[in-house]
């Protein structure tokens, strides 16, 4: 069985030649059909960059230094731009992190969903609005017709995120990139949103690459997980395995440093700075190798 997404040995640097910073240093991962894979890392690990590379939404000053990104067997990096763009939203969708800045503040919710549906699915104006009503009902929005008439600032953060989730699944994509979709939400709302994502995934049969810094969120929604640090994959396995028997010292340290509401205070051990330093110096050694070329 081929993976829906197969990223192999991906190198990405940000900035101009001479002053470039490597953000991905040979990262590889696969997401199978219908699989939910967690991509875990702290800020600066490169997890969002990997997601953006898959979507073709890297910042302008980013340079892909090597590697392949295969989606349903075809290399996205070798594909002509128009063809790649045609996949976006339809076959590969995004649930963005910040629901406030991802919706247009001066257009009504319904108009924004309808534009997307008319463009992607060539629906008529009327059909697009009817479909929008169904989509909002699917993400448990009580009065979909009323909400369609509202502006983004008139609905709550949790509801905005649900609108974006509905839009992501609207065209039955085979891959959804979820980039920290619950980070800005309260825990009770986060749980509802995670339940929704799982429900829609089951219904639409999409695979999800779930980017997050929260090991708790990964434990609840992802069957498999990849741990990223300094642009490299440090650990990767079934979530239950990684959490029960983390192999890489970084994963072990991360778990020990995560505060838990079910355990008393004594259990916490911060990540040893020496470990982080050694991981970074290893990464920088790799950078020099890359600059010098293989010996």
């Amino acid at each position, binding site marked *: 069985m081929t993976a829906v997404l197969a990223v192999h040995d991906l190198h990405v640097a940000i900035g101009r030649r001479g002053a470039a910073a490597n953000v991905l240093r040979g990262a590889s991962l696969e997401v199978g059909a219908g699989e939910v894979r967690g991509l875990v890392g*702290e*800020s600066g690990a490169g997890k969002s960059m990997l997601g953006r590379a898959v979507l073709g939404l890297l910042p302008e000053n980013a340079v892909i230094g090597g590697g392949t990104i295969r989606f349903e067997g075809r290399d996205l990096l070798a594909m002509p731009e128009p063809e790649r763009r045609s996949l976006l939203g339809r076959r590969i969708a995004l649930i963005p992190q910040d629901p406030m800045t991802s919706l247009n503040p001066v257009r009504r919710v319904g108009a924004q969903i309808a534009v997307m549906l008319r463009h992607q699915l060539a629906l008529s104006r009327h059909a697009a609005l009817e479909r929008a009503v169904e989509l909002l*009902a*699917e*993400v*448990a929005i*009580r009065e979909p017709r009323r909400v369609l008439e509202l502006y983004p600032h008139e609905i709550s*953060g949790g509801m905005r995120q649900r609108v974006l989730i509905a839009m992501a699944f609207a065209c039955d994509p085979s891959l959804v990139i979820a980039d920290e979709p619950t980070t800005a939400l*309260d*825990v*009770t*709302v*986060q*749980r*509802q949103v*995670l*339940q*929704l994502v*799982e*429900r829609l995934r089951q219904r639409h049969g999409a695979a999800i690459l779930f980017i997050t*810094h*929260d*090991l*708790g*969120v*990964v*434990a*609840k*929604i992802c069957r498999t997980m990849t741990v990223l640090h300094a642009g490299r994959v440090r650990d990767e396995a079934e*979530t*239950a395995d990684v*959490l029960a028997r983390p192999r890489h010292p970084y994963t072990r*340290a*991360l*778990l020990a*440093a*995560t*505060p*838990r*509401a*079910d*355990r*008393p*205070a004594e259990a*916490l*051990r*911060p*990540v040893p700075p020496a470990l*982080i330093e050694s991981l970074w110096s290893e990464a920088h050694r790799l950078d020099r190798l890359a600059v010098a070329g293989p010996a």
Partner: protein
Amino acid sequence: MTDILLRTSHLSFAYPQRSSSLFRRPPVREVVKRVDLAVPRGSVLGLVGESGSGKTTLGRLLVRLLRPTSGGIQFDDVEIGRLGEAELRPLRTRIQMIFQDPQSSLNPRLRLGVTLTRPLQIHGRLNGRQDQRDRAAALLDLVGLPNSLIDRYPHELSGGQRQRAGIARALALEPDFIVADEIVSGLDVSTQAHILLLLRELRARLGLTMVFISHDLSVVRLLCDDVAILQHGEVVESGPVARIFNAPQHAYTRQLLSAIPLPDVEPGWLDDSSPLFFSLKQGSAA
């Protein structure tokens, strides 16, 4: 002298809203409602709530950045709820606040050494330039920052270093009471643990009394002796940490606790029959 350093009685605060008419009294929105808290000397109280629960407003009342609409605040047996700015001034050295976002609460144009000693300067406790540098160095040392940062600007620091700097500045005047508002929520797990342990150490060393505001119950369990759970501006439940976490009484506390995703695989966690899903089932049936 009691052993309660800070006590609030029926503390309330309301924001005036825009009036529909010039001649009508503007309507008010109550964000803190009749809150009774007692913080024993040397203890840490966790103030937990979701966004909009009024926890930040309550924190600002406690340090008297806001004036209560009604009710009282007793600090060291003195009523401070109604005091004016001049009367508050001596108290300001004893009560400090650490802010959520060190990026925006440190002056970007001042070197760290100057920022850290600014409170001392304002209260006339500095004796010249050498004293300032010595004090700044001592403060950096206290929060585990290298001395070399003394002439650095905030943007040259990492997020964790900036938060340490925020803590150092709050400690400059050697206060008895500190309100810390969501001070670890923007940090990575590896940095967050270091800051939490630093706070625990400082608390033990300096005998600080603290109110620690957070939306994250896991963090609160780590640092606090007591917890108060806020919902819509009201304290719905409060008590010792062990009791609240092991035997929560209020439905909202239980809901908050069960919503925390612990880093364990738990198959049933996502298919819960919460009210949200009742409406979903109705919606899809229609």
